[in-house]
């Protein structure tokens, strides 16, 4: 009996069956590696009470790409866990922020390295670890800290995901993935933290064995569904934006 193919024909099929209440991680940092097509498909899929994990809830820039803010606007989100719940520049406003300030969605603000490490811990069977990050700040108030070697550290818990949505440059039929340049970012750790990993792929799926085993960035055992991104305008492919002032 052969294993079922991991390749699915559409984004709708790729996000089918995602349950209300699921925790979903979205890879990507700035533009590279963000699963824009899967995020758009999720808007249509319509699952409710989601917990969304990502570096940011969405950028302030226009034109606006699919982001967690869109899911919040549609009433699909109970909580976000992100390193940005507001813009760093006081003059910017993230689409998410106004819903948060109105109390329509919960948010957990996490330092970016702690976010990456909590995901990595979930993917490594480590339930909790200590980090020096955020000690002495508002984020550590009322929380457990501990001294090691004369320095204070904060206890942080693993952050397991039900689903990881990621974007990769190349894939083979076994699910082995390669990312290009800074597209890698959160994507491997999101996949390792997840029960089910769904991938949008920028190139046609290649036969198993197309990559040297030494050059696989994420092993196929972490990958469950893959869909190839069609050319624009059907698929979302980031373009250069007007430079910010």
């Amino acid at each position, binding site marked *: 009996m052969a294993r079922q193919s991991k390749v699915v024909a559409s984004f709708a099929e790729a996000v089918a069956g995602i349950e209300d209440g699921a925790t979903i991680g979205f890879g990507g940092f700035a533009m*590279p590696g963000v699963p824009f097509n899967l995020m758009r498909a999720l808007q249509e899929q319509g699952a409710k009470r989601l917990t969304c994990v990502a570096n940011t809830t969405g950028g302030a820039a226009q034109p606006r790409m699919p982001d967690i803010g869109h899911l919040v606007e549609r009433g699909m989100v109970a909580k976000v866990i992100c390193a940005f*719940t507001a813009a760093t520049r006081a003059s910017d406003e993230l689409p998410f922020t106004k819903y948060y300030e109105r109390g329509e969605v919960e948010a957990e603000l996490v330092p970016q390295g702690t976010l990456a490490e909590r995901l990595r811990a979930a993917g490594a069977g480590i339930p909790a670890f200590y980090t020096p990050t955020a000690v002495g*700040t508002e984020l550590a108030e009322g929380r457990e800290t501990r001294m090691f070697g004369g320095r204070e550290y904060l206890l942080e818990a693993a952050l397991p995901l039900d689903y990881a949505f990621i974007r990769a440059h190349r894939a083979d039929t076994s699910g082995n993935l390669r990312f290009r340049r800074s597209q890698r970012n959160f994507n491997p750790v999101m996949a390792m933290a997840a029960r089910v990993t769904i991938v949008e792929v920028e190139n046609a799926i290649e036969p198993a064995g197309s990559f040297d085993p030494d050059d696989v960035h994420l092993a196929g055992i972490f990958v469950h569904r893959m869909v190839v991104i069609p050319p624009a305008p059907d698929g979302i492919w980031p373009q250069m934006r007007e430079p910010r002032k």
Partner: protein
Amino acid sequence: MSGLNRQQMADAVARRFQDGWIVNLGVGIPTMCSNTAITADIIYHSENGVIGYGPLAEPGHEDMHLVNAGGQHVTLKPEAAVVHHADSFAIIRSGKIDVTVMGAYEVACNGDFANWKVAGALGGGIGGAMDLAASAKRVFIILEHTQRNGAPRLLTRCALPVTARGVVKLVATNLGLFEPAGEGFNLLEIAPGVSVDEIRAATGAPVLVPADLKTIAV
């Protein structure tokens, strides 16, 4: 009294970098440190896992898969290597970053600084700042000396929620270069055309001035 422009502030900081240092640059003015010719032999690291990036890409030559932590399209040096986010912050937390340069809303003479949450906001934007501030060997801050209304940003204690405590080693503003020194700021170098009295009037903490005060080269 305007003093240094943004690139000059970045240059004043970049002159303190040493050959072979691993340097992480925050969004805004700090990114300009990698666009100066002052430092020849620096390894730039960004939170998204790029080790060894170079100057910004020329218009029309951007690689859509390659940005720095500020989302700017950069180039790569021959020594470049890419890692994932968890490994990138492993580098940060394990103390391998020689200096992190960041913007801030406020910096205090006790070495605290604040750059993730503005007054009255519910949310914030931390990014990698807390990780970098907690674990880099040196934290350098670049910021305008005062707010637009003239209120000081260099203070005795931060009013905003801090990013990390007691970590700032160097502060560059449009008026000068400063070192947090506990009960006040040591003025290390002064911007051309700026007076010590002007600095004192614009600073919310004591300013200690050395006998042989140098002027920043521009």
